[in-house]
């Protein structure tokens, strides 16, 4: 039922938040709709190395949350992109990652429940020199866990990436899946499936173009 409502809301370009808030709140909220991006390839695997680890070309996929599209890597040194993906690593356009003023933090809670970014939120910028990233790297750190036994990456439930874009606007992201087609692989999936179906991001996001910290 909740899902159906959401679909209808998305279809009309209205968020449930608007419907819910308009009843008891005076402030006018500009409607932002959630967009789902499917199967965004992020340095997909080319084979298995002799060390037993997946091999890949080491590419990064740049994405514009403003325009909802992939940005060519030739524009990596521009503010055209907001967020970039390379295997499980997520970069934000700012600090050592790009010329933008982007930053981010990981919010613990539900995507729909995050209507206003808390005033005391600690936005961080990427600093590759200190191995410190706005979206921290590693299993259990930010948005995923890696299970050494099943060799599967699972997004952590209840994690929202709150992003300040390259140009200083705000967006929120929930990573839904890391495997092709948005389908979670079973623990018993073949080695080939685990290898070649990974690094395809499915995520949903909401972007607030007016610069407000509300969604």
């Amino acid at each position, binding site marked *: 039922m909740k*899902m159906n409502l959401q679909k209808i809301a998305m279809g009309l370009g209205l968020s449930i938040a608007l419907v819910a808030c308009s009843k008891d709140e005076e402030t006018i909220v500009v409607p932002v709709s959630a967009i789902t991006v499917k199967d965004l390839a992020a340095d997909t695997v080319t084979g*298995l190395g002799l060390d037993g680890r997946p091999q890949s070309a080491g590419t990064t996929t740049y994405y514009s949350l403003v325009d909802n599209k992939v940005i060519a890597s030739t524009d990596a040194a521009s503010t055209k992109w907001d967020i970039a993906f390379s295997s499980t690593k997520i970069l934000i356009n700012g600090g050592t990652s790009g010329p933008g003023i982007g930053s981010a933090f990981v919010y613990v809670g*539900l995507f729909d429940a995050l209507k206003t970014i808390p005033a005391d939120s600690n936005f961080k910028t990427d600093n590759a020199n200190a191995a410190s990233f706005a979206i921290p790297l590693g299993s259990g750190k930010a948005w995923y*866990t890696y299970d050494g036994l099943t060799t599967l990456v*699972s997004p952590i*439930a209840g994690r929202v990436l709150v992003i300040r874009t390259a140009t200083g606007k705000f967006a929120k992201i929930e990573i839904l899946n890391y495997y092709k087609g948005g389908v979670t692989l079973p623990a018993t999936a073949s080695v080939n499936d685990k290898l070649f179906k990974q690094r395809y991001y499915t995520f949903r996001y909401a972007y607030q173009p007016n610069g407000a910290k509300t969604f």
Partner: protein
Amino acid sequence: MKKPPYIIIFLTLLQSGILSAQSRFVKDTIDASGDSVVVTATRTERKLNNLTVPVTIINAKTIQQNGSLRLTDILKEQTGLNLTSGFGAGIQLQGLNPDYTIILINGEPLVGRTAGVLDLNRIALGNIKKIEIVKGPSSSLYGSEAMAGVINIITDASMGAPLTIGLRYGTYNTVDANLETKLNTKNFQYQGFINSYNTDGYSIRPNSNSRVTTPIDRYSTTQQIKWELSNKTNFVLNTRYTNERIQNEIAVANNGVTIYSIGKENIKDVNVSATLNHRFSKTLKTSLRTYTTTYDAVQNLLTINGLPYRDVLNHNFKRIENQTDWELNKKLQAIFGAGAVWEGVKSSRYDSEKLRKQNDIQFAFTQWEWKPSEKLTLIGGLRFDQNTQFASAYSPKLSMLYTLNPQHQFRFSIGQGFKAPDFRQLFLDFTNAAAGSYSVFGSAQAQQVIARLDALGQIGNLFPNYYLLKALKPEYSNGMHFTWDWKINPSSSLSVQLFRNDIKNLIESQQVGTYITGAQIYSYLNIGRAFTTGFELEGKHIINSNWSLNGGYQYLRTGDKDQIADIKSGTVYTKNSQGYSRLMKLNEYVGLPNTSKHKLQVKINYNSPKGYYLNLRAIYRSKWAVNNNNGNEVFDNGDVFASGYVAINSAAGKSFKNGVSIQGGIDNISNYIDATNLPNLPGRTFYTSIKYQLQKINNNK
């Protein structure tokens, strides 16, 4: 058959010569009725009917007729017990992990646990008289590890056939050969047992890391001497030696590139115990026991294009203890005991494999048994353990038996059990260079090590947990067991048991800081709280003089109390099938991983007076959670489960009058395979065996 056991043939010839001097032979029988004598529950000999705590006895006939070779084979067919895999085959008792059940051989503990698991495949069943399983905390008598219960394997010290030879052959070239000799004079009894077990192993998964699937050569021998020094004093010496070699050649092919590696493992396990028993009078006796055991394991992994990997573990345990039994009057009996333990471990996973880490324990215990009337027995016990490496532990226990009438008996027990922090939790010094260079430091030295690293400028952050690091406390469990035994009629009986265990101070690894590089640093803290609860039903029915039926069922619920509190407070999330997060509901919580809600086993038995027998055993275990796939670390309906399954085993055989007996059997008839979750369960296997028991030579004493 790879290696004919020549040594056994030689010893057979040698010993059969000696044995012509046989003096007497008494046929040993154990009945499964209430008259069976149990030693584990009270550390004194008590009839099963008079015990105040729930005990299961598995006798030699059941072990033999089921075709069980290793301890795991027979335990997995018991109510309330489940086999676990990973670091060898361990046993889960009433939902508690293998760490929490103490395994004894003739009352002395086995050591050599890997990640808390004692591999029960190490124990051959050839010369076992019986296995006693006590459910519920028993630390009041046995100290650490006896939190969920006690499994005591009692070898056959009775006078019996002077010579028994057994040979078994089965699928995967599995050869099991046994030789048992017994030599008895008026004051002297000797029993010797040799077992050789060789298997090619099986690979239900090509690059499985489970060692049960690997080729194994395993030899074990036990020797027992009992010497009656006088009619009041005797001396018992027990020795056991096991040597196990595993070699596994692994070839992993990927995209036309094959990586070869060779894994070699050698495990040696030695146990020696000497006991002097003396009876001062009809009401006073004492025993002095000394015990020493060493477990030594060496693993080597050679990969064609990688660094060789070597892992060494050497664990020794020495104990001396005295126990005195005093019968004050017909209604009141007391036990007093005290002793000391010296325990040490050397491992390549500690700071130096040459340095032995040591823990000394001094302990004392007492138990009082009061029988105010024929119908009521009350037992109270208390034990105190003092350790050099961690906090001391008191273990009290109270239990009672009320016999309403010969048909109905009620038992109730309440007690506290504990498990001492193990050496790994105290002393581990391990950095995983292969996966992110994270480190794990045992709690006993984590603060020192980290402070030293900090002085070198290698530490990035220290978490609040770092400042909480202190001497680990033992993990505690409070257990309650209530049992109702109902003898419905001479051929049927039913037993109902309710149980609950509340565990606190669970030791868990926690991140305490980071390196300057961001790599994690972990140590161990007492943080977890959990429970296991449920009920067990066991029934027996004798259909007629040939056929009988028995079965058992366990219903089990488990949970992590902190996780339940988090779910209730609305801070635990889960994901729906589209990947959208939502709050998790309490009714979605499935409890602790690797625990199944239902376990059922049924056995049909046929025995004919002519020595034929047949049995069919079915074991069902319902699904259990194995992996978390939504990162919330809480197991819910959406996580990864191993499917429930049924395994059916059958064996049949005949015993002839001339001492020869033959047996054939099929295990896992339906060929159920789950390589990921049940690496210890091969597909369908067949076996056949022959046994010869030399009959008494001179029986007219």
